[in-house]
């Protein structure tokens, strides 16, 4: 049995969440992953959206970060200033999801620009909330397709902090969050080692180490055994396709 990239990434991201976590959710796959976790092993997950919505219970799949379905029936709504200060900066967020055009060897993310900042070759959307999420959430997860151009040795622009030049540098910076804990791709999972370098720790069923290496822009390493992820279960797939994304907007 084979799975789509979106299914693999969503299911594996969902499994990283813990019951009771307070999660800063984005739209797209992170939203699906959180809702999947809430309907399986993490019923106590609290979902916070950067638009200022806390404890959302979306009745339909939200198509943007500010979808009105997030508000109706939520626990609380607050201002953007409050969501970034009282929630994120104060340390009330356990998990943040991040994405970007480039993720480097130490988990730093570029969502700003390809080329020179002042004379952009490709102008990307920019930080939005990711600079602060990356710094202040206790744990960050990155969901991204595994492609060489997305995984350069060094990002063109450091929009959001991973481990900077290594764990010691992040620790010295004094930011409260623990940094990226895992990068979930369509091939497997990368996790930071004791130096903060992203190394291959898991592969999805049927994926080879070479495939992962070929699609990474630095010399991708691994320490010890590489785990094979559990395939998505029938129940996980049913929830995703029947309940969460029946129109196949994110899961194709």
């Amino acid at each position, binding site marked *: 049995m084979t799975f789509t990239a979106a299914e693999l990434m969503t299911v594996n991201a969902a499994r990283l969440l813990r019951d009771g976590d307070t999660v800063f959710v984005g739209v797209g796959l992170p939203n699906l992953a959180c809702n999947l976790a809430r309907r399986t092993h993490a019923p106590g997950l609290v979902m916070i959206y950067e638009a200022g919505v806390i404890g959302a219970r979306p009745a339909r799949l939200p198509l943007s970060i*500010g979808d009105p379905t997030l508000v109706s029936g939520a626990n609380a709504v*607050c201002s*953007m200033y409050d969501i970034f200060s009282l929630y994120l900066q104060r340390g009330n967020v356990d998990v943040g999801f991040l994405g970007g055009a480039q993720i480097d060897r130490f988990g730093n993310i570029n969502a700003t620009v390809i080329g020179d*900042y002042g004379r952009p070759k490709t102008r990307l959307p920019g930080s939005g909330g990711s600079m602060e999420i990356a710094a202040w959430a206790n744990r960050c997860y990155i969901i991204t397709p595994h492609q060489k151009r997305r995984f350069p040795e060094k990002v063109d622009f450091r929009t*959001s*902090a991973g481990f900077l030049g290594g764990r010691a540098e992040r620790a010295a910076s004094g930011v409260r969050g623990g940094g990226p804990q895992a990068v979930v791709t369509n091939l497997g999972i990368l996790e930071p080692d004791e130096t903060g370098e992203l190394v291959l720790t898991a592969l999805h069923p049927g994926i080879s180490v070479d495939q992962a290496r070929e699609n990474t822009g630095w010399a991708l390493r691994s320490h010890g055994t590489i785990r094979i992820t559990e395939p998505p279960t029938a129940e996980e797939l049913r929830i995703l396709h029947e309940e969460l994304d029946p129109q196949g907007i994110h899961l194709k």
Partner: protein
Amino acid sequence: MTKLCSLSEAINQFVQDGDTVYAAGFTHLIPFAAGHEIIRQGRKNLVLARATPDLIYDQMVAAGCAKKVIFSYIGNPGVGSLRIIREELEAGRLEWEEYSHYGMISRLQAGASGLPFFPMKPTAAGDLERSNPQYRRVIDPYSGQEVVTVPALNPEVAIVHVQRADAAGNAHIWGIIGEQKEAAFAAKHVILTAEEIVDEEIIRSDPNRTLIPEFIVDAVCHVPYCAHPSYTQGYYDRDNAFYLDWDKVTESREAVQAWLDEWVFGVKDRAAYWEKLGAETHDRLKVAPLMSTPVNYGAY
């Protein structure tokens, strides 16, 4: 004192060439009708500030109203790029000043509070801070550690769309409240657009719901459906199809001009625009009611 006037009068009076404009709203209550009116009136050299420029600023940039954008996220939310702004930035035809969301909102919070700057904890990312000289640092006088600062943002005019307001400008807002209040207090002038103009007794029945008080408001405009293709919580839905369509329209500048000709220059005002959208769209964006449980203030 009533401040009711047409949106056309309000834009004419309070938005001048070269002004810094903040059309407020984080995905919600985006005052598209005001953006279109600014385009119709041919304003030039505006500095368009907004955390998320969204389609409203893409359209205003396309129409040649802007010389600069100030932002924290230039995406088409849920879709991808804002092609017009992106192309103009890449071509060097548009100035820009960039922050993170928190930096942008802190600028407004400082401006609204009458403070010269606002502090934030460092994020260690570094590159944006190095690229924008408006990011600075001060030493926390208690710990000796550094904090990052951004300067106050005080736009000439804020445009804020709300669900209901009285004629004097006291406004109830619910759903995502983004930076509506901060933008209004930060700005020198405030243009309020409202889905409904209600009797002041409705406003006074729930004073905790009033995010914007009359005395900072300059103009009150009754503009139903002002926020389309974004939405007004409880009044109509977000038009996601429109956000997808805009991505296609902006593949060609000719198509963009044709769109502006038809939907901005070709209509007199928002009422005509809404009428032109037609019954199918009206139906598609309708929403069934879901009312709040009232609270008791007490007849003291």
